[in-house]
């Protein structure tokens, strides 16, 4: 993190931040100038026209001038409309997430955050996101109202129990930033904290791939992925016939294929069947398996293969 923030604003760590800060400082300087003018005039008048002597003097009333009154209706009105237009434009930008944004699901409950990634990985207390890539969070709550706030990104939105709300941001700095809950939610409200950890694209990909693994063994992690990826819809693990062949005792089993070839199932065959299922179709089964599993990360594939090999 290069930028440490200013007296008023925390560091700028998203693409929105500089725009919001520009808006803030615009309002700030206009306010300051007007404030100094009005309060300066007040102080000057107090000094210049303070009551002297015995107070016998009653000053003549001033005539009211419509021009003056209208001027200080019109002047502020123009300034306000200017600020409104700017605020409106920035709000549009803030509200509409780019179509290619990386999607993460957020669940809030009293008093914890939980983040779920497209591959099914689910973690609490830290939100890892790639740098320089738009990220859209789709949020909902399990109980009462919460609100998702990252000051360094200048984003905030309430998290409701009966509907989805969303925020998006594009982090510009690698580093750690605070997440606060800003809608009062009871005893643990001020402890409902989490961190955004912004990583480089590669680090992030590698983390997402293994993030669910934690300190599990590859076989245990493989079993989690097996259910997350819905493998069991087609492949049983107890020997019953499904849409696809059972995986029970697959390692070392002789397989006969529709093109007439055959082989003894080994690690390479299992891996190939996951990432390129159409290559070899077991006889009597339809070529029903999609090729989408090729997008799994190497560590995940290793874990799946290890799990399938363990099914004796």
């Amino acid at each position, binding site marked *: 993190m290069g930028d440490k923030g200013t007296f008023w604003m925390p560091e700028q760590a998203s693409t929105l931040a500089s725009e919001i800060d520009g808006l803030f400082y615009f*309002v700030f300087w206009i306010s300051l100038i007007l404030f100094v003018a*009005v309060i300066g005039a007040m102080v000057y008048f107090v000094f210049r026209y303070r009551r002297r002597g015995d*107070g016998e003097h*009653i000053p003549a*009333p001033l005539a009211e001038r419509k021009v003056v009154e209208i001027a*200080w209706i019109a002047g502020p009105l123009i300034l306000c409309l200017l600020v409104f237009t700017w605020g409106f434009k920035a709000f549009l930008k803030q509200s509409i997430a780019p179509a290619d944004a990386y999607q993460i699901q957020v669940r809030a409950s009293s008093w914890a955050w939980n983040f779920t990634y497209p591959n099914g990985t689910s973690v609490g207390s830290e939100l890892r996101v790639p740098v320089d890539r738009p990220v859209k969070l789709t949020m909902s709550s399990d109980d009462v109202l919460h609100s998702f706030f990252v000051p360094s990104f200048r984003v905030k*939105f309430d998290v409701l129990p009966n509907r989805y709300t969303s925020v998006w941001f594009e982090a510009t700095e690698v580093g750690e930033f605070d997440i606060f809950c800003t809608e009062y939610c009871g*005893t643990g409200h*001020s402890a409902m904290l989490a961190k955004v950890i912004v990583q480089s694209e590669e680090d992030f990909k590698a983390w997402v791939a293994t993030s669910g693994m934690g300190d599990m063994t590859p076989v245990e992690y493989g079993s989690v992925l097996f259910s997350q990826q819905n493998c069991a819809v087609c492949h049983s693990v107890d020997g019953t016939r499904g849409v696809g062949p059972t995986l029970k005792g697959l390692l070392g089993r002789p397989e006969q294929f529709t093109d007439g070839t055959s082989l003894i199932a080994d690690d390479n065959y299992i891996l190939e069947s996951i990432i390129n299922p159409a290559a070899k179709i077991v006889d009597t089964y339809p070529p029903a398996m999609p090729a989408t599993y090729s997008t799994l990360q190497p560590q995940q594939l290793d874990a799946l293969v290890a799990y399938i090999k363990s099914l004796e």
Partner: protein
Amino acid sequence: MSATTLTTRDATPPPVHYLNHDKSLKSWLLTLDHKRIGLMYLVTVATAFMVAGVLAMLVRYELINPGMDIMTAETYNKVFSMHGIMMVFLFIIPSIPAVMGNFVLPMHLGAKDVAFPRLNLASYYIFVAGGLLVVGALIVGNVDAGWTFYTPYSSRSSDSVLFMTMAVFVAGFSSILTGLNFIVTVHKMRAPGLTWNRLPLFVWGIYATSIVQVLATPVIGITMVLLFFERLLGIGIFDPALGGDPVLFQHFFWFYSHPAVYIMILPAFGIISELIAVFSRHPIHGYRFVALSSVAIAFLGFLVWGHHMFVSGQSAISAVIFSLITYLIGIPTGVKMFNWVATMYRGSIWLQTPMLYALSFLFLFAIGGFTGIALGVLALDVHLHDTYFVVGHFHYVMMGGTVIAALGGLHYWWPKITGKMYNEMLGKIAAALIFVGFNITFFTQLVLGTQGMPRRYYDYLPRFETMHEVSTYGSWILGAGLFIVLFYLLASLFRGRTASSNPWGAATLEWTHATSPPDPHNFHQTPIVSRGPYDFHLLSEEFGDGHATQEIADTRETQPG
């Protein structure tokens, strides 16, 4: 006669006045006299302010360091909720209208009383009943839902929310009846010659407030009824677990509570107009603009409630509309500020304690207004919403605005209410301490907010510690200043000099046509009004009939001109 001898001049109090014509307890408890009712409100409301103020000091003390200092998170949540509820519903909303409105409004109009004196007494007792329900909730186990009662948290947290919804409903009823009473009083009870263009601006302020009270308060009433039944019967209007919608509650709540902000600030505008005119000895510049801007604010105030909900889940279109109207409301407010400062131009400015409060109001309310504009900016509000910036902003408006104006008004009318002068030197010291303490307490909170410190936090990250510490020190200075005020005002009752009927040389009827303290029926004879409320240069001209001569002679003696 010099300015200093004016206030030190020995005045003789009238032998019979509203405080001593009947001293029995019954004559107080069942009084129909608007002045006595105003005084009873003053005692009640000041008590609520002190209790809520002590709670505020506890909140600030807990926040001096991160982690636990003097209370647990549960206690903290109850303490800040109680602070908010008592300050809003038992102090700020009734403060100026019920205390000074009651005491001053009929006298400003040259009337003997408000239109419905019995209803007035009833509103007082209804208000007391509401206050007792709040105390009941305090004893039964407290409420920790904040003063906003957002569902579904409030439909699940402690059962004393039931008490609290009742309390708000009952206190609201009192507010409605007071507003209704004042509207009719302004329309029907004006003295001969007192045209709308000659009304003191305090009357305009109270009148605009009353309109808001009558139109907005029933909505919070029904909201509280629905919330009550939600907890009691699970009717499922607001609680999503039962199929309800929490955002609907926020719409209902803010439809009242945003106009309620103007219930709190419009009477303050009225007092400031009086103070600036009297202590500059100049008619308010742009009288009609100042008067009508109050009414404009009252009506626009109904159209901006959604600016509390930019990040709540309402549609983006509504957010944009609410933001736009929010700016429009800044315009009439600005008109007032400019006109007040213009009133001082070429005036003869007398820096007595009430004027010090008026000047500090201009300073603090300007900051409150500008931070309000910042919060109305759609994209910026996303960052600032529900942070300490909001806390700082509304304290600048509510406390820096309303409380400071109420203190100014209390000092201004104190001689009229009690017939005694307070210690001017202590008054100035206290006003300065309050001003300094207030800024230290709340300016730091603005900075905390832009830095991202969320509100209603019991604990916080170490990087916010310095600012929180400074803010707590400020609250001690502020508390000390307020304590000094309490001390010298009470002391003045026993040892204060007797006030003359018009120590400030003001030109409104309560000063020119009534003794200090006033007669039980305010005026010995119905005044006739032949000039504006701030025509100080016409002060010495004859008006009224036979009886007024004595008062005018008195005025001439005390106030040159």
